[in-house]
């Protein structure tokens, strides 16, 4: 009964165009944010921060970026890892080569470089569609990985080709404790999430979706596919690039191209499919699912085994993890091909009408 929109009349289009038109939703989101900012730092321990929350936030950001491209503009990309890598290494170079470069600018500049590369590899999308495009984007994946391995300038001529950063700070505030890292990521993710949401509900967003749903009709009403697709690539790779830089700087601290391998690209694609294509919230659901599930299985299985008295070897756990993970992916695709976000919204609609079935 608590979840109703009756009696909430919109008197202006502005009011009607809000992200969350229903008061309860706004309240819920507000509460969630408050929890994330104040409660979580109090309860979460270091492991939760470093191994779960921070990766979750950063990967949600990347998934968000990818979702704009795949979910909203319908251009499948398997090269996400590459764009993350560009973001990371570009940001790194700005840090080491420009004295006193503030972290946040380095991140954004990293994103900017990712944008350029993204647009470059987006050009084929003007001619290539669907799976063909997907595989074509793999070219970005492998080429970029190779570039960072081979051209030592990008890695500041480190003998091994692995680079690292340290003592990060945000306008004087040092970012070294798990809490600060978490809050830093949280802040960035929130800002980008809001911006992304605004974009997809503005006319650029409608142009993307138009191209996705029916490109010919889109062209006929005056949408330029070139512009729509390339902006999608640009925005997407910018966000992905920033996420990549965060992943390298905040989460890993030291990295090599392998940190942005093709597995990463697939992982992100999983996130948005499971979470929900064309849904900002879905990106977060997906990220949570894909980040937490393996860790959970990995710790739960031996525990479960111990409880029932059988001792499960590390290898067996790892294999079982793969199997269950794969199985669940398929399972989710079958029960809800439109992802967790869709489940969520149907649940909400049901709740709205509750107790009446229709």
């Amino acid at each position: 009964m608590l979840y109703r929109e009756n009696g909430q009349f919109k008197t202006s289009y502005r009011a009607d165009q809000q992200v969350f038109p229903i008061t309860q939703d706004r309240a819920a989101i507000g509460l969630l944010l408050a929890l994330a900012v104040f409660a979580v730092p109090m309860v979460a321990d270091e492991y939760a921060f470093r191994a779960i929350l921070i990766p979750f936030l950063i990967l949600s950001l990347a998934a968000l970026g990818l979702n704009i491209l795949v979910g909203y503009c319908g251009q499948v990309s398997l090269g996400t890892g590459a764009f993350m890598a560009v973001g990371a290494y570009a940001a790194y170079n700005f840090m080491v080569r420009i004295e006193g470069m503030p972290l946040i600018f380095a991140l954004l500049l990293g994103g900017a470089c990712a944008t350029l590369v993204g647009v470059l590899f987006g050009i084929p999308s003007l001619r290539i569609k669907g799976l063909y495009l997907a595989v074509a984007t793999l070219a970005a994946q492998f080429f970029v990985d190779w570039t960072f391995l081979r051209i030592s300038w990008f890695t500041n001529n480190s003998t091994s080709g692995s680079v690292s950063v340290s003592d990060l700070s945000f306008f004087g505030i040092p970012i070294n404790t798990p809490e600060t890292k978490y809050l830093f990521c949280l802040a960035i993710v929130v800002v980008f999430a809001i911006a992304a949401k605004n974009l997809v509900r503005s006319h650029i967003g409608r142009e993307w979706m138009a191209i996705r749903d029916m490109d010919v009709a889109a062209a006929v009403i005056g949408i330029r596919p070139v512009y729509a697709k390339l902006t999608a690539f640009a925005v997407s790779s910018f966000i992905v690039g920033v996420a990549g830089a965060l992943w390298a700087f905040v989460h890993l601290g030291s990295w090599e191209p392998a940190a942005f391998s093709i597995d990463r690209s697939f992982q992100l694609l999983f996130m948005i499919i499971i979470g929900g294509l064309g849904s900002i919230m879905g990106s977060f659901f997906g990220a949570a699912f894909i980040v937490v599930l393996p860790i959970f299985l990995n710790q739960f299985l031996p525990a479960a085994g111990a409880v029932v008295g059988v001792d499960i070897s590390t290898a067996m756990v790892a294999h079982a993890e793969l199997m269950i993970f794969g199985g669940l992916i398929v399972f989710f695709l079958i029960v809800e091909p439109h992802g967790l976000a869709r489940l969520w919204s149907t649940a909400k609609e049901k709740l709205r009408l509750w107790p009446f079935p229709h």
Partner: protein
Amino acid sequence: MNTTTTDAGASPSTDGRKIGDVILDVQGISLAFGGVKALTDISFNVREHEVRAIIGPNGAGKSSMLNCINGVYTPQKGTITFRGKTFGHMNSRQVAEMGIARTFQNLALFKGMNVIDNLMSGRNLKMKTNLFQQAFRLGAAQREEEEHRAFVEHIIDFLEIQAYRKTPVGRLPYGLQKRVDLGRALAMEPQVLLLDEPMAGMNVEEKQDMCRFVLDVNDEFGTTIVLIEHDMSVVMDISDRVVVLDYGKKIGDGTPDEVRSNEDVISAYLGTSH
């Protein structure tokens, strides 16, 4: 815009809107896919404010004709002149900017979006704010959204689809989807409206509504209308002039009555269908 309901059965009232001079002139258009000839040397013109019908059996090349005008297809030969400007082939974007809108035979709505967004997408040409403004909903972007939303709401009222504002178009019944399709075209505030079988697959009531909307658009805003339609009675009722295509060739052109009495047309078309 108040919606005056005229009975579709009644013949179109030419009074009230004077037919102007030629606004769109198609000259010797030929189009082929590989070896298949879709259109051969088609020429006809459209006068301002008139309702122009293109008829013909299936596969006569009617839709292809519209696709050429929209720049979806590029004809091998021929020119299209719009308001004095002549083009070898049209570019969809330009066409839209010049004020030619279009609905589709088998719906081409944006299934993933709700009704409002579909109509709003028709306004994209008129929305000017840049990415950054949109990303942070700065004043301009917010205002823009609201203005155009207001305009779209008028269309929603006009088409009487208020109840479905937020419904994803995929879930709407066919007849309503056709309306949304029309609405999206209207959102562009077109001077010329190309309707590709707006009444295909509708029952009598729906057809009547649709006729009403078409005629209203034509009266109210003096929008020039080019429509493809199978239902002869409708065509004969509402159109001022009719072009008849058969196997990609033009076999007749003139007022409904002239066309009715045209031998080739009768043999090729009326004779066979209905």
